[in-house]
């Protein structure tokens, strides 16, 4: 008797023959959901295993065994961990991250605002760094192994080698303190005029750009060089195509997949890795929210931030994977 699993496998194989693209993309989507669920378990368990206790931190000096027990009971911490996990998960799927233990306010509401701020910062950092990195990568290829290439390489490597808080403080010292042309701290609030808002995020944006630039630039350079040395680029040249036309028509489609991959990785970093930068610049984004929550052991907030960071990371990487799949003619047009 054929097992049902074998039947599923055969069906998948058949589908893969006829629609390799759809099957691959569906697989990626499924894997992403699975991964996100696994992360949710890890986050919940990790937060649970953290040393320290909210009730103790909250009560501080006035803690008595009785008051601690009362708070724990109020928050439902006396119930088994699995029950609490599934309750939390059930809420999360409906978009409800529970209430903050510290303030009692719904986490979802706070996070929406904070995430908005973080994405605002990440968006401008990306809008500047991605074109700049790809452009510099192309310039580096054009002047390969000559002075401009080396300067770009050395400067971007130096930028990536410095920790972001260090870059942040240096920028603050020069541009805000000594020259007085930039705003610090970068605190933004509701109904802030756009011009002021942009001025406020100038320094954190610059810091982020410097941190992610080198990686993307070097990958662009490597991807283009590898494509440029392929035989079909020689064919293009021997067809009498101009250098620009050859790059746009023949090099670009084949260099896209590796570049998109590293761009996605860095975009994810822009959202997830801003924690330190937000703290340095006192920017009211997700990162600072999370750091504050960790200090007071406000677990629902920590969990929510962790899960959202993970979701952003997984989503962007999945998007990169799908672009790479779609960009591959072998998968788009099966034999």
């Amino acid at each position, binding site marked *: 008797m054929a097992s049902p699993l074998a039947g599923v496998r055969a069906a998948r194989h058949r589908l893969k023959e006829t629609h390799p693209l759809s099957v691959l993309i569906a697989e990626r989507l499924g894997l992403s959901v699975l991964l996100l669920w696994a992360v949710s378990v890890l986050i919940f368990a990790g937060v649970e295993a953290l040393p320290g206790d909210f009730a103790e931190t909250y009560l501080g000096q006035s803690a008595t065994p009785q008051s601690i027990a009362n708070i724990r009971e109020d928050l439902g911490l006396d119930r088994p961990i699995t029950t609490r996990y599934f309750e939390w998960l059930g809420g999360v799927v409906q978009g409800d991250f529970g209430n903050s233990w510290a303030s009692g306010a719904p986490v979802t509401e706070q996070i929406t605002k904070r995430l908005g701020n973080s994405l605002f910062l990440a968006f401008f950092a990306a809008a500047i760094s991605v074109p700049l990195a790809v452009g510099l990568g192309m310039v580096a290829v054009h002047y390969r192994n000559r002075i401009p290439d080396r300067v770009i390489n050395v400067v971007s490597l130096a930028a990536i080698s410095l920790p972001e808080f260090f870059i942040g403080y240096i920028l603050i010292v020069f541009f805000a303190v000594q020259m007085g042309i930039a705003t610090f701290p970068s605190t933004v609030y509701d109904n802030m005029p756009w011009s002021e808002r942009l001025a406020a995020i100038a320094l954190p944006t610059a810091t982020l750009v410097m941190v992610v630039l080198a990686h993307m630039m070097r990958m662009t350079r490597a991807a283009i060089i590898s494509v440029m040395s392929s*035989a*079909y680029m*020689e064919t293009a040249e*021997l*067809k*009498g195509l101009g250098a620009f036309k050859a790059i746009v028509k*023949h090099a670009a489609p084949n260099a896209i997949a590796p570049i998109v991959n590293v761009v996605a990785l860095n975009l994810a970093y822009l959202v997830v890795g801003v924690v330190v930068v937000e703290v340095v610049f006192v920017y009211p984004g997700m990162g600072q929210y999370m750091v504050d929550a960790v200090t007071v052991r406000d677990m629902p907030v920590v969990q929510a931030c962790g899960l959202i960071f993970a979701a952003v990371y997984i989503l962007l990487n999945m998007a990169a994977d799908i672009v790479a799949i779609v*960009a591959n*003619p072998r998968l788009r*047009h099966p034999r």
Partner: protein
Amino acid sequence: MSDLLSVRDLRIGATIFPPGEAPMDIEIVHGVSFDLQKGKVLGLIGESGAGKSTIGLAALAYGRGGVRITSGEVLLDGEDILPLDKKGIRKIRGARVCYVAQSAAASFNPAHKLGDQVIEATVEHGLMTRAEARERADYLFEILGLPDPKNFGNRFPHQVSGGQLQRAMTAMALCSKPELIVFDEPTTALDVTTQIDVLAAIKNAIEKTGTAALYITHDLAVVAQISDDIMVLRNGDTVEYGPVQQIIENPRQEYTKALVNVRQTKQTEARDQTDALLKVENISAAYGNGVQVLHDVSLHVPRGQTLAVVGESGSGKSTLARVITGLLPPFKGSIKFGDEELSNAQKDRSRDHLRRIQLIYQMADTAMNPRQTVGQIIGRPLQFYFGKRGAERKKEVIKLLDEIEMGEAFYDRYPAELSGGQKQRVAIARALAAQPELILCDEPTSALDPLVAEGILDLLLRLQKERQVSYLFITHDIAIVRAIADSVAVMLQGKLVDFGPRSEVLNPPFDDYTDLLLKSVPEMELGWLEKVLASRKMESAGH
């Protein structure tokens, strides 16, 4: 009649970067001159490093990598194209002079449809409208014998076979109605039965369109079928230059004579082939993806003799070697070695069994650790199988180096410092170090130039006489089979179609496929291609 292409005292240089030394400028083509008239074909022939591709590309004023043309003239219709600026030379490339590369698979952009790439240059140069170019491409696909020519252009490079790609590349070169096409080894990477089709298609297209061509190859028999004149090159110098008939039938230089006579029988077939050293019985094997690659193969290798396994790419001949070594355990069948049964999987075999079967690969380059010296490479099996160390091991290695005609001077060299032929010799010495009874040779000469390959074959035959070692020699080259085999196995799509003593397999009555294979091997004879094509036509008319 005036000359279409006239090359005068062409000198080409390159900069090399020897490890640990300052960059050096060297000359790789030393003053070559030739003339080519409209509609004629000139064959450029020589070994690797002879400068033939470099000269061919000079007709497009192009230097590959760090190569540059240092002096001389390349006159296209009387005009020197070398001093032209970028814009001027672009007008010539892809319009008046086109190029067909050896590896069409790498030379087509995987991201675009074949049709778009074929007409690209023609449209780009403003020679035809898109629609006109498309129509011409369809016509060219048809005269090049491509399947479903109307829709062929809508396919992507990965969707067609290697032979079809090579023909598509020829169509790409012909599309703009150029005055000259440079063919750079267009059939070298193809199987013989495919090569003959592509060769016929190219010849037919050249005749129909009246374009002139430079035809670059290392195979004199191939170029003899298609050229009017032949230029023999060696190390960047002209060895001999003349009409094809004179070169083939009456070569004047020693080197040309050697090239013409390269395919000759070396070995008389052994009479008694019953003493089987290796017996493969009813082997069927499949790879992990469930695709069966060997179907019920049975054959034997006689002791001290050579069994040649021939077939085209994908016929399963290398897989058979993998099965014999135990790297790919078969799902059915057995392997007998002498009187003993061999375990199917390599990990279950005794060290002594492993020692008695050794391998030589096609790419000696990739089969050696580039960070080990020749002494370490050959010494390793001595230590592994016989526990020899130190001075004793070194003495053995030097003895082996003498046997492969290289000598002690190579003991401390690294593979990168050796030529292709020398690397293959080291690989042979490494196999011999284990004192095997059977050596599986997987196309050991197909990446080598003909004269170098000849030396390797001579060495293998001498070693066989001295050591009574058996060879299972995998090849796609019938000429090699004729030269060295005692018995022959012909494979097609994972099945054994013919097996027996050489004299039986290679002489009538033939198996159908063996017949096709034999007839497809280019012969050093003028008009051979026409003869074969005519006989094929008669056969298909007779059916």
